[in-house]
């Protein structure tokens, strides 16, 4: 790994955040001595129960909250620095969008805030609408959308600037399984391009599927941190998957294993998970459907996001 690739994008040291009441009396210690280093190209998962300090940490990284003490650097600068913000894409836990704007206008507005040229803006909006399956609803007001569709607009706005650091707070909340899969694929594709992703989620399966490293927070401090494999691996057990064997061969293998471990091994048939099954059904239905009112299932990925 080169120095550039290994560069720390987010450096948090001894971060403390105390929420105070009107009279400045301490009310809640939301983050308590948090240390974090997130490197370029990583998908970093922030896990923890409600109120563990995940969202507060993210909001401090974005400059929406001020740290009570400790150091926070993003791209080597303070989070409130305008230069820093230009390199970040953020999807909040709820899509705080302007209900009176259409998806096209929403993306155009945020594109303008990044000072994107009109040509680049139009091209990216087009690709993002295609990617999120909202092309057919591009001229409808966001206020009319379901939560999932609004979430897609939120995701699209987070990517309009082709960010180097993407912060996603519960990105799959409200999305159907197709959307969830797509978001996960997107995260993997972005990470492949060297983008850094911070993912905060309650859906542990999502985190497990995509994250390189995770930190588990509780009461504002990190209780466990490391790569997913490192944390989940059971080194004392082995799983062996192979094609079905003739019964007598199987019997001989089991006898050998039984003899070696001294107890009955667990055997089952690998099954397709529900997500994969659902995706297959929807894909078939999509091929035969003539009209679509919600988000259109699509495998498309915005071209500028996958460009090497």
């Amino acid at each position: 790994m080169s120095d550039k690739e290994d560069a720390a994008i987010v450096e948090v040291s001894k971060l403390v955040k105390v929420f105070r009441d009107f009279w400045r009396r301490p009310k809640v210690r939301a983050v308590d001595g948090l240390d974090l280093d997130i490197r370029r190209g990583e998908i970093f998962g922030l896990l923890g129960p409600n109120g563990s300090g995940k969202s507060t940490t993210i909001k401090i990284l974005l400059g929406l909250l001020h740290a009570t003490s400790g150091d926070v650097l993003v791209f080597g600068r303070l989070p409130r620095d305008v230069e820093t913000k230009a390199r970040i894409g953020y999807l909040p836990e709820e899509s705080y969008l302007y209900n009176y704007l259409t998806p096209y206008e929403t993306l155009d507005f945020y594109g303008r805030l990044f000072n994107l040229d009109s040509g680049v803006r139009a091209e990216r909006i087009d690709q993002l609408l295609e990617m999120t399956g909202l092309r057919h609803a591009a001229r409808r007001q966001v206020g009319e959308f379901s939560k999932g569709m609004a979430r897609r607009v939120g995701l699209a706005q987070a990517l309009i600037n082709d960010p180097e650091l993407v912060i996603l707070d519960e990105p799959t909340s409200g999305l159907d399984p197709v959307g969830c899969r797509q978001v996960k694929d997107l995260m993997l594709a972005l990470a492949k391009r060297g983008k850094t992703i911070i993912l905060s989620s309650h859906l542990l399966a999502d985190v497990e599927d995509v994250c390189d490293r995770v930190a588990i927070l509780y009461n504002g401090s990190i209780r466990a941190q490391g790569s997913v494999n490192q944390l989940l691996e059971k080194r004392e057990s082995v799983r062996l998957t192979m094609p079905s064997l003739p019964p007598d061969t199987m019997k001989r293998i089991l006898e050998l294993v039984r003899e070696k471990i001294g107890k009955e091994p667990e055997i089952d048939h690998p099954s397709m998970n529900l997500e994969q099954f659902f995706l297959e059904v929807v894909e078939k239905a999509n091929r035969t459907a003539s009209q679509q009112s919600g988000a259109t299932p699509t495998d498309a990925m915005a071209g500028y996001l996958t460009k090497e």
Partner: protein
Amino acid sequence: MTRILAIAFLQIRGAIRSKLFVSLMAVLILAVLGLPLTIKGDGTLAGQIKIILYYTLGLSTVILGVATLWASCGAISQEVESKQIQLVTVKPVSAFEIWLGKWLGLLVMNTVLLFTVGLIVWFLVYWNIRSADKNAREMGIVREELLAGRRLILPRDTLDEEVRERYHAMMNSGMITTNVARDEVLASIRKDLLAAKTVVGPGAAKRWILDMPDYLKDAGKEGKPVTLQIRFSPVRRGNNAVCGEWSMGTERKPVLFNMVTNVSMDGTYQFTVPVTPSLMDSIMEDPVTNGSSRGHTMIVEYRNGTGSESRTVVFDRKQGIVLYVRESGFEANLIRSMLVILCRLALLAALGLTAGTVFSFPVATFSAFSLILLSVIIHYFIFLLATDTGSCCAEHASAIDEESIGRKIAEQAAKGVDVVLAPVMRRDPVDLLSEGELVSWGDVGKALLLMVIVYPALFGFAGVLLLRRRELALPAT
């Protein structure tokens, strides 16, 4: 600039899509068209035009002012509450760009609404003129006195000076002692002098001195109509006619022009003075040394009639006589009035936006409206104070009235605040327009400088500072 314009455009789009803009436009049109139908005029064309100009434009300004303050208070505070601002502030946008973008958006909406009102008012004025009886005298009054921008020249006000002189004289002669309340003495002296200056008994005469500005040099050559307005005091109005003779001139040539009037004391009269180049030249070529300054003065004298029917006349203290010089047409004056009103709306928008950066929407609205109310009260208090005692004799203040130090401090504080308020609280442009008085480009420039640049810059600076320091993602309490 792209970011500022994007935010401004978003503000406008929000107002249009939320139907705020359309509703406001509908209310304004209804007010402008409906109000003249509900207010009964004096039956004259001039009265009807005054209603259109004063009441409809005045009401529209109030509606727009309230709506601007309300909308500006919500522009940032409501986005903070709905958390939409979080998605904006995480983008590379500075607090200054957010504040300025919102302010510009409000300004553009106000411009469209206000000039639409102006256009309807203009149309209504001419529609009324077209549909009125073609009475030449009435038409003349409307064209010369209302549909014009006339510069106003008030007589020199020496009351404060005279009050001071008399007070000092009384102090020095021992007529008043230190245990007498200063304010009461001043008020009493003022009252006496005022009576002496405004009351003209039968056969008596009253003089006014008018300082004539240099720009009037060419008024005669340019044929600018000059109107003399006489206003009687409301305390002695009646239908009885009073006869008197007016003369105008200079110290050396006191009678360059004269006329006899026979009017009832029930209001205000305007007489056109035929300003010939020779009359104006005579005034302008007769400089008078007044202390250290030299200037041109015109002396206006009223001599009350002496016959058996003659009566005592009481003139209005401030505007017993006023000289008007026509400077511009109605349309130009209307446009300038609109621009001054727009500047005021810009200031309100700045105030509301800044209140919204620190408070929640209801608190911001309450604070902004309270601040305006307080400003008006302070300004009125200062006005009353000046009318009561004048601004003289401060050197004796410590010797007397020791018991009211608290009041003095409050007065001084109010005066200090009024230094900031006074330029903004200048006479209402709607008032000027409906009286046919000039709203000059100078007035527009001053309004632009103060209410669009200086004060909004101060509000903006405070707003940006507060927005930058504010934590926009605090948990709801």
